[in-house]
């Protein structure tokens, strides 16, 4: 498969890469790289608010539908708004504890959470 032409090209690429690596700092080792990767504090704040609002919206929707069906207006909506808020807090808790976006507190997540616990969540 690899003929001489390709090997020459590979060697040339190798030396060019080496040359380029000597001149460029590893971007991951530069200060601020970690912050940019996480999208910054504003991105985190936005994600947290979206999680809470969407969970409450689902709670309102379920409550409204059940109220219409069972004719219990407005009691089930009140209950489901509270549950929706709890679900939103749960989402945020999962977002904040180690494993980034994952949902469900599972054994796998707990292990991952322990491992990722040092990097300040995601």
């Amino acid at each position: 498969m690899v003929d001489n032409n390709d090997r020459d090209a590979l060697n040339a690429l190798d030396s060019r890469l080496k040359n380029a690596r000597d001149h460029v700092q590893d971007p991951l080792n530069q200060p601020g790289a970690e912050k940019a990767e996480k999208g910054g504090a504003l991105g985190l704040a936005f994600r947290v608010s979206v999680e809470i609002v969407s969970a409450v919206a689902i709670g309102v929707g379920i409550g409204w539908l059940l109220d219409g069906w069972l004719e219990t207006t407005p009691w089930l909506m009140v209950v489901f708004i509270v549950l929706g808020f709890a679900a939103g807090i749960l989402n945020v808790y999962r977002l904040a504890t180690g494993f980034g976006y994952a949902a469900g507190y599972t054994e796998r997540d707990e292990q991952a959470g322990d491992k990722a616990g040092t990097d300040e969540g995601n």
Partner: protein
Amino acid sequence: MAAGQSPLAQFEIKPLIPMKLGEIDISFTNSSVFMVVTVVSISLFLIMGMRRAQLVPGRWQSMAELSYVFIANLVRDTVGTQGRPYFPFIFTIFMFVLVGNLWGMVPYSFTFTSHIVVTFTMAFVIFIGVTIIGIVKHKLHFLTFFMPPGVPIYMAPLLIPIEIISYLSRPISLSVRLFANMLAGHTLLKVFAGFVISLGIAAGWLPLVFIVALTGLEIVIAFLQAFVFAILTCLYLNDALHLH
């Protein structure tokens, strides 16, 4: 202020070729135009980039391979080897959102990802698909997803509704995140562009400088949101495939 100068005028859907299917309006709109442009440019980018595939890639081939490897690694890291059948779907979603966002950065273009109907449709398809995968793979065992292990049984009536709401909120938070980021960014750009004109030569350069910085930020957000969309799809898929 004329209608065309409103910061929100850029999001207006304009039917170009009116079509009707029964009562449903299926017109070909400016949004559709940019979806077609996006799909065509992705296809050209990948097919032309790989047309003369070489062992030592050129710049173009390198970019095409980079995008492939990026998503392949993302799927492998978050879902594992079981995620391989779903790679084409996740790659498609990522490229579609990314290139759609980037086309939106071109002046006078239309950003279809700034419409909740577009992002929600994608998120809803992902949500339904992932749920079906979970049910097919685990049958009734899938329902244990809503009852975390190690929780006392008397907590179930409270926790199960919370878990179900948390699960149902996924497509909403997934779609709202992308849509709101694009909507807010493009509105902000337009508002500050309006300031440039109204402040004139005296102080107009100040918002102009801000717009330059904001344009850079918007391009970062275009990449970041496409990445977030893809990684969340992977994580939902991972939950469905592996449950607990």
